Structures are given as C-alpha cells and as structure tokens.
C-alpha cells in the first residue's frame, strides 16, 4: 500500500488551518497527491484539465447574477424586507421552516436546481429573514445579520441534502445501487430511497427546532433590549 498520496490530504488540512488562499492550496494538494502516486507530469496536467472542464455545471449559478443584480439595484431586497414587515402573522421561524419544507419536498421530487443559494436564498430568503428578525429585535447588529444569512443558507443545505436521497432516479441512490450490483447484490432503487426517509424526517425536525430556538433567543434578547430602553 502506497500511503504517500495521503500527504495531499495533509496539504489541504494545513492550508485551510493556516487560512491560506484556498485555490492554490487545492491545486497544490492535487499536484502533491498525483506526483507521490507516481503519475507523470503530462498525465497529471491532462487529468487536472479534464476533470476541471467536466465539472463546468458547478458554475451555473453565475448566470443568475445579472438578473439578480439588476433586481437588487431596483430595490428587490428593500421590497422583500418591507413586505415581510407588513405580514403580521409571518414570523422568522414560520418563514424558514416553511422554506425548509418546500426545499425538502422539491428535492425529493428531484427538483434541486429549482431553488438554491443564488436563485432563492440571496435574492429572497435572506432579506426576508432579516426583515422577519427585525420585527422581533429592531436593533440587529452586523454579526446578527451575518448569522441570520448563514442560518438561511444552512436551512437551504439541510433541506436539499436530506430530501435528495428520497428520490429514486437520482445520483446517490443510483450510486448505491450500482455499487451493490457490481458486487452481486441486486436492490431496487425504491427500497434504497425509502430507507432515506427516516433521516429526511429527522433532519426536518432537528433543523426546525434549531430555527425555533434561534427565534426564541432573539425574542429573549428583544425583551432584555426593551427593558434597557425603558429603564
């Protein structure tokens, strides 16, 4: 067993720990692992180039930027925030848990590209969350805003990841089935997808409770803040 390529992993860990720019760190790690595995430089270059261009779909979010940018210039965030402020019954927890549910169900149907960080979180969910939080605690600090946006992004991730596996014709389920088929075990995709359901439910409950607790924390701070304002 050649353990030397593991040094590539060490490059990653050290690079991230020392907060170097992630791009050269990742490329260095690839070069280190490849060279220590005995790949020749031209082959390594070709491998790097080929795998980079084969994953071009990961930059698709760039195409949302012109439309989103134009709308933000025209006041999209401001409008989303004002609208949230007017909706009396819409609380922060209801907004985020509702989004979590929609995102998870869409992912279960295989519709992952429909929502996402560039498509829905930045233009809609994040500003609405900020407005909903301002209804609770009007004096939000910059740290609060950062945390709120991060919670919105995390909610999108959790909904997407744990819904995705409950869909039959999707990558993960097919990968599991394919692995077993190679080793002589025949499974139906439906059976695999079904066993992802318990975790999907648990993930929904856990994230919802955490959102609700976050809202409670804001409410407590709001009480304290009002006390200080009054006293």
């Amino acid at each position, binding site marked *: *067993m050649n353990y030397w390529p593991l040094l*590539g*992993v060490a490059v990653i860990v050290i690079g991230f720990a020392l907060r170097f*720019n*992630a*791009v050269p760190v990742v490329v260095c790690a*690839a070069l280190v692992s490849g060279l*220590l595995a005995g*790949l020749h430089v*031209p082959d*390594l*270059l070709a491998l790097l*180039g*080929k*795998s*980079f*261009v*084969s994953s*071009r*779909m*990961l*930059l*698709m979010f*760039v*195409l949302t930027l012109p*439309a*989103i*940018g*134009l*709308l*933000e*210039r*025209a*006041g*999209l965030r*401001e*409008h989303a925030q004002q609208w949230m402020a007017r909706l009396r019954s819409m609380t922060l927890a209801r907004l985020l848990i509702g989004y979590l549910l929609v995102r998870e169900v869409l992912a279960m149907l*295989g519709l992952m*590209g*429909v929502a996402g*960080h560039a498509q829905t979180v930045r233009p*809609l969910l994040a500003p609405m969350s900020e407005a909903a939080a301002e209804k609770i605690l009007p004096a939000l600090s910059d740290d609060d805003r950062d945390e709120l*946006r991060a*919670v919105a*992004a*995390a909610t999108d*991730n*959790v909904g997407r990841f744990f819904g995705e*596996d409950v869909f039959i014709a999707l990558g993960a389920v097919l*990968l*599991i089935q394919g*692995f*077993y088929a190679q080793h002589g*075990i025949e*499974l139906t995709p439906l059976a*695999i997808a*079904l066993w*992802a359901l318990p975790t999907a439910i648990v*993930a929904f409950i*856990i994230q919802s409770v955490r959102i609700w607790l976050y809202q409670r924390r804001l409410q407590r701070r709001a009480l304290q803040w009002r006390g200080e304002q009054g006293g």
Partner: protein
Amino acid sequence: MLRIEYAYWLIAAFLLYVAWRNLREGQGSRAAFWLLLGLLFAGGDGVLAQQKAGNPLPAQIAGAMVIALALLAPRLRRHAHVDTVSAEQRLASALRLGHKLFMPALLIPLVTLIVALVGAHLSVAGHALFATPQMTLTGLALACVIALFAAAYVARAPLHQGLSEGRRLLDAIGWAALLPLLLAALGEVFTQSGVGAAIAALANAILPEGSAFACLLVFALGMVLFTVIMGNAFAAFPVMMAGIGLPLLIQQYGAHPTILGAMGMLCGYCGTLLTPMAADYNLVPAALLELRSPYGVIRAQFWSAVMIFVATFIMMWLLVFR
C-alpha cells in the same frame, strides 16, 4: 435543440465580458483570471472531445491554465460588493415597483421547474426542444436569460445594466467561484492517486476485532471523515463500502445492505455540511451572501449536522442487524 453546452458558452461570454470590463479599469490580474476561466469554459467541449479521441494536448493545456488560475487567485483581493445606487434610491424604486420586483426573481425557479417537469415533452416541428442530458440545468440557464429580460422590463433598465451589476456580484464572489470545480478535480486526482484505498486500509488497521457495533461506528465516522476530506459523499461511499461495509458489516456480521447503503450515504451528507471542501454549499454561499467569515455557513449548520448524524447512526444501529 437547447443543449447544456449553450449554457456553458453563455457563461463563457459573460466571463469574457467581466474580464474585458476589469481590463478597461486597469485590474490586470482580475482580467487575466476571468479571461482564463472564460477560455476554459468556451473550449471545454473541445478539450473533452479531443481527450476522448486520444489527443491529450488540449487537456494538458487546460491543466496548465488551471495552475495559472491558482497562481492568480491570491492576487484577487475579495472586496465587498459596492452599491451603485444609494439606499434611498433603491427604497424609492422598491416603493414604486412593489410586488412587480418579485416576478423576475420567481421566474428563475418557476421556469426551471416547468422545464424539469415537462421539458421532455416539448418539441418544435418534431424536434425535441431540450436535450435530455442535464435538462434541469439547461432549464435553469434558460430561466436566467428570461429573468434578465423580465428584470430589465420591470425595472425599465437597459440589459447591459444587468450585465454590469452581474459583473459586480461576480467580482465580489471572486476566486471562491472557482472552488467547486477545483475540488471536483481534486477528488478525481485523489481517486486516481489511491488516496481512498490508503484511507480504507488505515480504517481497517484501527478496527477492533469481533465487535459489530465498533465496526459500524468506524464505518459511519469514516463516511463523515472521508466526506470532510473529499467534500463529497459520493467519493467516500465506494471507498468505505469496499473497505469496511461489504467485507465486514455485510458479509461477516450480516448487516442489511439496503439500510446500510442508504443510511451510510446520509452519514456522509452530514460530513458535507461540515467541510470547506464542499465549497459550492458552504463557501460559495458565504461569499454570495457577503458574510465576513467564509466559514459562517458551516458554523450555522454544525450542530444540525452533528445531531442528524447521531440520530441516523442510532437508527442505523437499531435497524441494520435485524
């Protein structure tokens, strides 16, 4: 027929536009960075076709360009997105336009949804409108174009203003945009270099004999750890399965393969929530939302990931040996 390649050409055109704008403003490194990336996007099909035909030269050139991008990246200082219009102007515009502003933003998910659902049945004069591979992503690209036109119409702004605002956002995201692609390439290199096999061998070496529970725990934690390293549960799954899951858990201890497979993969997904290596879920959103810490999203989902992992592991332990 609309193919995913057209979307890549569109991205390439946008990247070249961003490069040109940066060049005109004297931002040399930035311009070179987006230019190289734009060329990689424009030439991507050619690279893959030549590689398939047995000519590795274009792929080697692409590899050299990736290294050049890595050298340029540290010179791109990430700066916050500078607003072009004042907050008062935006507020006035928001009051004037109202809910109309939502329409183009909602068109992006809506058109994508429609294409994903019925795209396979759409045809013009007997020719399918959408190519089957990557139909949802092709739909997303189309949705973005439609949304840009709609946004220009609603805001009564010229189209090029959208390009210029998009460029501003992309420059604010900067090199972080590149990470998902690089990490995918790194995963490929790791696989080819036998990093996975080495990790499976290490996991086997620390495994205690004769305990099904300990074995399951090493398998589940291995899925998390390996996903954290690779940034992708799909890369971790075959490694952990071939190293521990199949020979020990299934064949020796009689674990249920369906449950082990499904829940083992989900343990890996918990790892995805924890790692900067899963850049498109954790680092890109942090840049996109202009958080001050690149790890803000990971911090926000850390405890969710831990709790979901613990719950999944307990369920797996209770169910898998029945």
